[in-house]
């Protein structure tokens, strides 16, 4: 056959099989669409962060000195090699004249801000104006809306009045992600009139530097100064990546599931196609087309369609991501640049080629089994996908390449490998389940019931197809249950209301001499208010058992936060009522004068710390070591005062400190804090419900995207399962027609269908439930750090949904012999 004739044949076959192709490849198309979208999303975010990391940091280097400005000599030395801008950040309350107030993060900027990138402010010249005019402020859009501010309005920070001269649309240096970020800009002269010197303000001096010369390095005394934290653009990109890593990981795992499930579906559909087209293939063979040519035809068709699907899905994904960017991803504070990237397109194509070699080629190889003799004998062959040693090696190799490539491209290679391990284990389980079935059914003999006899015979006759169906259904329902459990758990977490006894407000930055005034003010607002006041200091962990903490704790550790940056620490005479001691003993206030430490047991577990280990702190420049005396179970979710570290008061009460307080009012709605913050201008408060709602809002947006993707995978699962079920239905049309001719009623055939479905359905549902419960538990506890719960609703809803799909599919695929029309069935052609 010449190439042009072959091409004609190829095109004609494609054209004639349009409807079958659409059905067979719809699931794989959706899964490639998800995979493309996740790939584009991941790469776009990574590129955005990587390309803009200097802008996100605000320079080539950032020096942070917490609450102490850099020495002027050091600054002078830095100015020789760097352009420099000095920023001071702190949290405070912004008040309006009509007694509205709001917590905001204030950025004090100098005339050089921003060194890199653009600040978009409305009106555009207002940043320039801010730098020169005293007592002016720029607020962000949220603050403007919440406080109902207009340009020219006056607001107050502490007792200083500031004029709103502009609204911040976006700032370039958002390296820390202002998730809860209501922010404002003021200038240095406005800042000088404020009294910001307490811990509750989370005070921070930052110096953003740009090298005058590319080879310029920081002076060694800065590098070795332990009180200066140095950040480079790559640190920012790492931090940002970490924030969205779980989200991207979840999506990529979902896309891998989608590809694998639809791959199994593709295998199933191709097998069904071959079974139904046995005579056609035999005719081709009888006319002189070799098995090789026919395989080449179907292999090249499948490959071309897969490549087309992957290309089209990639293009469609670009469009979807740009839409998502506008409607969903704005909350990540990232403007993604979605554009055609050849390597991304090639990655998607590469995976579609792997899908071909893993799922499609082995099935198409069964074309060899179709003999021309079926035309002489006029009888179908029960095709089986026979795995030879060669085909098993081929499939395993391509599967390994698939897993390896996916892991390498994943944001979390190890966890992705674990996921694939689970996936393969489940696959194997369902594969062997079908084998066990056959063995059990083989042993069942002497059955009197005709339906059971026919059912068992059918199951054994289509054993190869049944094992694919069991695998497809098993994997599909396991993923459906898994997604259901995941959704219900996350949803439950998001809908969990604020704990009953949680305080309404946190007050920070209360000085020793303000304690009485603070208590008086609270009583004035509500005499029945419940308040807890505790001392607070700030310290940095210098060493654990005399070793620098970053040498023994890596960034992947769940409690890395504990050793990273400053820790707020308190002390207590008695053990906190909400933090039960799980190990060790509480201290004796009279005897213990040396530093003793009470630690969160979860932190101790993650960092492998035990009673008797030592931790060295840097407290206001002094190194102090203490011994861990007891471990407490700290439940941060109760939103009360919870410290990971408590000191013994015998030692700590001598350290200079300030106080923080939680207050629960009898009726929160009637509370007005105006007088309190007027009298105590340095005190900052956090409204707990506002904070929780903002967190929920952020998580909700992530969750909506995850659910949307999960829903798509559920649809794929249902398409694949539905196709799998209809395969046997189609194959049994002839058999059922004969049964009808012999006098079987429609109801009898229904009973037969129900019996055959039940022997497949029941064990699959049970094992899927067990697997999905285990996997969702693993995911929820390890990746989402939430407590897992079993929702009975999930299996009930999904099983019912699946049953509806099952029944609909059976009705549709069996309609031919339920609506008895022998003539059209008997006619050849």
């Amino acid at each position, binding site marked *: *056959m*010449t190439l042009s*004739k072959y091409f*004609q*044949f190829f095109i*004609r076959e494609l054209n*004639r*099989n349009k409807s079958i192709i659409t059905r067979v490849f719809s699931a794989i198309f959706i899964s490639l669409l998800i995979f493309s979208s996740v790939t584009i999303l991941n790469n776009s975010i990574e590129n955005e962060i990587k390309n803009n990391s200097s802008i996100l940091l605000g320079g080539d280097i950032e020096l942070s000195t917490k609450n102490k400005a850099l020495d002027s000599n050091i600054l002078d030395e830095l100015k020789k090699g760097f352009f420099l801008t000095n920023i001071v950040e702190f949290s405070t309350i912004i008040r309006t004249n009509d007694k509205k107030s709001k917590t905001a993060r204030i950025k004090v900027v100098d005339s050089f801000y921003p060194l890199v990138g653009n600040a978009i402010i409305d009106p555009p010249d207002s940043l320039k104006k801010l730098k020169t005019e005293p007592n002016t402020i720029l607020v962000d859009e949220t603050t403007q809306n919440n406080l109902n501010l207009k340009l020219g309005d006056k607001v107050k920070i502490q007792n200083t009045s500031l004029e709103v001269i502009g609204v911040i649309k976006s700032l370039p240096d958002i390296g820390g992600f202002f998730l809860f970020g209501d922010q404002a800009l003021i200038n240095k002269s406005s800042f000088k009139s404020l009294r910001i010197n307490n811990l509750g303000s989370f005070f921070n001096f930052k110096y953003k530097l740009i090298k005058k010369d590319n080879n310029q390095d920081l002076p060694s005394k800065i590098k070795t100064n332990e009180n200066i934290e140095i950040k480079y653009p790559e640190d920012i990109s790492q931090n940002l990546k970490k924030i969205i890593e779980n989200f991207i990981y979840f999506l990529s795992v979902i896309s891998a599931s989608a590809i694998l499930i639809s791959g199994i579906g593709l295998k199933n559909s191709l097998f069904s196609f071959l079974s139904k087209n046995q*005579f*056609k293939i*035999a*005719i*081709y*063979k*009888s*006319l*002189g*087309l*070799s098995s090789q040519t026919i395989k080449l035809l179907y292999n090249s068709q499948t490959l071309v369609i897969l490549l087309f699907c992957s290309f089209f899905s990639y293009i469609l994904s670009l469009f979807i991501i740009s839409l998502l960017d506008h409607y969903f991803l704005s909350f990540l504070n990232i403007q993604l640049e979605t554009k055609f990237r050849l390597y991304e397109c090639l990655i998607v194509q590469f995976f579609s080629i792997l899908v071909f070699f893993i799922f499609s080629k082995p099935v198409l190889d069964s074309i060899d089994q179709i*003999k*021309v*003799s079926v*035309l*002489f*004998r*006029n009888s179908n062959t029960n095709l089986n996908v026979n795995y030879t040693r060669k085909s098993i090696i081929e499939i395993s190799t391509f599967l390994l390449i698939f897993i390896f490539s996916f892991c390498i491209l994943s944001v979390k290679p190890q966890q992705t490998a674990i996921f694939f391990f689970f996936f393969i284990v489940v696959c194997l389980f369902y594969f062997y389940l079908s084998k066990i079935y056959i063995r059990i059914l083989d042993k069942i003999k002497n059955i009197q019931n005709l339906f059971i006899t026919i059912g068992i015979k059918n199951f054994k006759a289509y054993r190869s197809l049944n094992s694919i169906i069991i695998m497809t259904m098993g994997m599909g329902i396991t993923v459906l249950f898994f997604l259901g459990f995941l959704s219900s758990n996350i949803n439950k977490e998001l809908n969990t209301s604020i704990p009953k006894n949680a305080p309404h407000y946190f007050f920070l930055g209360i000085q020793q001499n303000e304690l009485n005034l603070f208590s008086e003010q609270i009583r004035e607002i509500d005499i029945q208010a419940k308040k807890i006041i505790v001392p607070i200091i700030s310290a940095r962990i210098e060493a654990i058992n005399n070793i620098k903490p970053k040498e023994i704790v890596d960034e992947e550790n769940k409690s890395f936060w504990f050793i990273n940056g400053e820790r707020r620490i308190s002390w207590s005479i008695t053990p906190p009522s909400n933090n039960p001691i799980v190990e060790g003993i509480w201290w004796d206030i009279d005897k213990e004068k040396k530093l003793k430490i009470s630690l969160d047991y979860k932190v101790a577990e993650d960092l492998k710390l035990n009673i008797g280990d030592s931790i060295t702190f840097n407290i206001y420049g002094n190194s102090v070591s203490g011994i861990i005396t007891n471990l407490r179970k700290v439940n941060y979710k109760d939103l009360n005062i919870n410290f990971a570290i408590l000191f013994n008061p015998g030692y700590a009460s001598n350290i200079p400190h300030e106080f923080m307080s939680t207050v629960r009012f009898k009726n929160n709605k009637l509370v007005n804090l105006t007088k309190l913050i007027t009298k105590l201008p340095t005190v900052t408060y956090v409204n707990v419900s506002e904070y929780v709602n903002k967190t929920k809002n952020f998580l909700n947006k992530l969750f909506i995207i995850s659910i949307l993707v999960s829903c798509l995978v559920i649809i794929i699962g249902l398409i694949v399962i539905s196709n799998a079920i209809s395969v046997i239905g189609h194959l049994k049309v002839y058999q059922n027609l004969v049964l009808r001719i012999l006098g079987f009623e429609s109801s009898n055939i229904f009973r037969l269908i129900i019996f055959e479905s039940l022997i497949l359905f029941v064990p699959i549902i049970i094992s899927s439930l067990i697997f999905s419960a285990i996997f969702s538990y693993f995911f929820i506890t390890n990746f989402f750090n939430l407590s897992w719960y079993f929702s009975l609703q999930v299996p009930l809803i999904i099983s019912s949904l699946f049953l509806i799909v099952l029944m609909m599919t059976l009705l549709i695929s069996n309609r031919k012999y339920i609506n008895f029309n022998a003539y059209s069935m008997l*006619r*050849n*052609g």
Partner: protein
Amino acid sequence: MKNLYKLNNINLNYQLNGNDIKVLKNINFEIKKNERVAIIGESGSGKTSLLMLMSGLEEPTTGSILFNNEDFSKISEKKKTEIRKKKIGLVFQQFYLIPNYTALENVMFPMQINNINDEKNKANLILSDIGLGHRKNNLPSELSGGEQQRVAIARAISFNPEIILADEPTGNLDKKNTELVSNLLLDYSYKKKFSLILVTHNMKLTKKCDRVIELLDGHIKV
């Protein structure tokens, strides 16, 4: 006349539940070029098995089949496929047209895979010749049984094979169509000078052939 086929001591056995089933026993005969031979016999006598052996689709247990002096047992599967493609036309009782191809496309198909040029015109001519020019754009499901079998014959002769192996081609047809189809096959075998092996139960048809081979329980009845 030259021999097209030579079958020497053909035996065909199947294994069924550990038992040897002897389907064909010691078969010897020759088919000459442009000869028309009818093979008759009761159901299960081995007629179809013999046809499968002659088309190279199955291997005899012992013995040799020579086609144009080439021993089927000594040539590759690829070569056998090539012979079937270029030299052997098959006609089945159940017609077996490609269901999603029109009558014209069905007839064109063997010419396309044999790289015969002008296949469309040639297929049109054949279809007109057999009286189905007006049905050329119909799918097999839109044709009657007789029409389907005529298209199948047109397809089998389209690439000018050296022999047509027909397995009960009139078995599914009524009297009128049986006449039509059998005449078509025989007329074409004279016209196009190909050999014809006809497996049939129709005694009237056997009389129109040059020779009759009768199989009885796997043997050739002498």
